[in-house]
């Protein structure tokens, strides 16, 4: 194990308490569970949760009397879904007292609790103020969730939880060989438009970038700005950049960037994608003032039909439900960024499992935390989430509780053709300081027309090389 970790006293304490609990319940620790814990725990000296996978009801041997503390990020998804899921846990363990908190500033409120080794049992570490997953994982402050993956699924005990998840979820949540983060919500990044506006004007969804540019010319002639975006948060543009590049040059273009491969940013597909984006600006297809609009302002202008297209994640419909309710005929539709000419991988899509749930290593009730995550992944748990958020989870092919709204239908439609070519993008999360300091602002400058694609590529490559050369930055790798 490359990670340097120091012996963790409270980890020892919790192992002892696990043993004590098992002894109290009159059970010996089963050999299978012990081995599973070893396999998951790796070679360092922190222990994992010992699981008994023959017991589909309670594989982690949760002490039903122990309280459970759940902290979730209260952002675009709200926290009603978590309250509903906590009720499911409470129904299973009626004696357990559940403490719930829905907060936005995870770092300020939970950071000190990691520092003092008193974190909550379940943490949805998301949002702008999240603590970098990589930092906590590198430092061994997240429990290894491998026992969860190997536990029987609640819906079908014959199946392991691992086999119910969408491809890539395990890989994305794995740091230094350990599965630490369960990204629970499924986000599709897309380009949105109004079905009714398109119908009224006789426009059709463009299938290629050339068609997109031709349509933009028509839209502009009709007196509407073809595109808007949030200039205040340039990372919304990652979707356009990397989807165009991955479609043109293959998903490896993005993978090489994540893995800090030599000259990864200098791949010709990146340059072509950047030039395509800049052409929107130079041809006058961007709504005036988009550079200074935040996400809500740009979305409001889009829903007012001042702009025809906007790149946002699939949370758009939920986030703007009030504005959309005021215009019932809007007919929200989405498509994936249309591919450039000569694209070798035209179905690529940035499908990003988000809302990273973790069980801290120093949590008092790790067994309960893992059981809570197992309940979240069950049919009832998914239903609670989808019904409250109109969003999909990372459980493959399941959409219980999804309301039937235009946006939800559009996302499901877009996934039908593209799900097989989904790619992740991890650089921004793994190397947050460099991405927020250099890549994001410079991408904003490119889109504003103040920085050329070539200059951007040089700067981005230099940043990647600097990260690689800095031994104090822990590197991650994905396949």
């Amino acid at each position, binding site marked *: 194990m490359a990670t340097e970790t120091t012996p963790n006293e409270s980890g020892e304490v919790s192992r002892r308490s696990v043993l004590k609990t098992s002894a109290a319940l009159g059970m010996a620790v089963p050999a299978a569970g012990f081995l599973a814990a070893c396999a998951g725990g790796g070679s360092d000296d922190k222990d994992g949760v010992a699981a008994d996978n023959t017991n589909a009801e309670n594989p982690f041997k949760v002490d039903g009397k122990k309280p459970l503390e759940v902290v979730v990020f209260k952002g675009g998804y709200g926290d009603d879904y978590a309250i509903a899921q906590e009720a499911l846990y409470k129904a299973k363990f009626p004696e357990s007292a559940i403490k719930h908190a829905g907060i936005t500033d995870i770092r300020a409120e939970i*950071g000190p609790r990691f520092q003092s080794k008193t974190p909550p049992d379940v943490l949805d570490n998301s949002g702008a103020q999240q603590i970098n997953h990589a930092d*906590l994982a590198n430092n061994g402050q997240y429990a290894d969730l491998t026992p969860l993956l190997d536990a029987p699924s609640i819906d079908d005990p014959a199946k392991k939880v691992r086999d119910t998840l969408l491809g890539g979820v395990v890989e994305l949540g794995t740091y230094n060989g350990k599965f630490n983060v369960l990204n629970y919500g499924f986000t599709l990044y897309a380009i949105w438009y109004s079905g009714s506006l398109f119908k009224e004007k006789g426009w059709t969804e463009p299938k290629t970038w050339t068609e997109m540019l031709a349509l933009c010319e028509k839209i502009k002639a009709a007196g509407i700005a073809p595109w808007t975006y949030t200039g205040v*948060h340039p990372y919304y543009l990652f979707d356009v950049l990397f989807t165009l590049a991955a479609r043109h040059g293959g998903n490896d273009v993005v993978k090489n960037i994540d893995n800090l491969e030599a000259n990864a940013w200098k791949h010709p597909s990146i340059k072509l994608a950047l030039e395509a984006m800049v052409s929107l600006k130079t041809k006058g297809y961007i709504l005036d003032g988009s*550079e200074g609009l935040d996400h809500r302002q740009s979305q409001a202008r889009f829903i007012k039909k001042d702009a025809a297209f906007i790149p946002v994640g699939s949370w758009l419909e939920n986030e703007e439900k009030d504005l959309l309710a005021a215009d019932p005929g809007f007919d929200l539709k989405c498509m994936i960024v249309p591919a450039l000419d000569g694209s070798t991988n035209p179905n690529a899509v940035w499908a990003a499992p988000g809302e990273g749930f973790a069980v801290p290593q120093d949590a008092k009730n790790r067994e309960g935390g893992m059981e809570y995550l197992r309940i979240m992944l069950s049919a009832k748990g998914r239903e609670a989430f989808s019904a409250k958020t109109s969003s999909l989870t990372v459980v493959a092919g399941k959409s219980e509780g999804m309301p039937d709204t235009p946006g939800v239908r559009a996302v499901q439609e877009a996934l039908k053709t593209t799900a097989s070519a989904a790619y992740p993008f991890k650089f921004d999360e793994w190397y947050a*300081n460099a991405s927020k300091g250099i890549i*994001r602002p410079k991408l904003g400058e490119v889109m504003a027309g103040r920085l050329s694609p070539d200059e951007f590529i040089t700067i981005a490559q230099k940043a990647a090389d600097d990260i690689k050369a800095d031994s104090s930055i822990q590197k991650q790798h994905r396949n």
Partner: protein
Amino acid sequence: MSDTAKVSAPPRRRKSASKRRANWFVASFLVLPVALYLILVLSPFAQAFQFSMTNWNGTNPDYKFVGLENFKKLFTSDLYSVYLIPALKHNAIMLIVVPLAVIALALFFAFMLNVGGKSRGGRMRGVGGSAFYKILFFFPQVLSVVMIGILWQAIYRSDEYGLLNALLAIFGVPLKSSGWVSDPSLVLVMVMIVMVWSSVGFYMVYFSSAMASIPAEIYEAAMIDGSSRVQTFFKITLPLLFDSIRTAWIYLGIIALDGFALVFIMTPQQGGPDHGSEVMGGVMYNFFSNGQAAMACAVGVILFFFTLTLMALSMRLTRRENVEL
């Protein structure tokens, strides 16, 4: 003490014992404030120095000592200097521009409102409606900095819904598509305008009260000697207000070294676009939220010495004899 030493022995002992008791009595009042100062002010300073030389990321209890590595990286590695260098530059610019602009405007307004008008019955008065202007100019002071930030964000909004853009549109000025605070070459000026706007009122009142303590006879004498209003200002008002101006300068310097709240609320990417409005406080915040807590502490240490140097310098440069009135 040298006086009491001459007195004979026994009374001295008695006297110094009671004096000592008195000292303890006084000290007992200071225990609480001094303890609070130690715990809440000095110990965080000391801790920031300690953390700045570790690899603490904000959540790892097992951080290690790395010496001056963080300071070196802050200046030499692009990954970190991309935040620090613009911030140092911007704080330096603000340190010169903001106090100068605020003091100049505040002095001008205070002079106009107090002695800028016609003299009536031998007494100096302000311009007409000065009571109203006083309230008007002071008004930003009653708003919290957060409200000021939100207010000006709405004024500077980049599309046609921005107040400034809407006003310009009335005069037929076309929309500036890069916006006001979203243009990296303009954003710092835009932030400084807000800082000046929100500070002038307070210093106007401050200088007004200082001016009120200048005896009217001096002005009358000057007028009899045929001094113009401009001469009166530069030859009488300004020199007699020197102490107040020096105090204002120091306070405004502190404001200029901060600026974090306004930048945080008003500017894109909280210090952007592309670090165009980065300030030291914002850099600390950004490093903290990027999981670089030790770097944030190192920036704090740099800011500490930056401020200390400036204070020492300004006290030394502005030291001079007071004029007794």
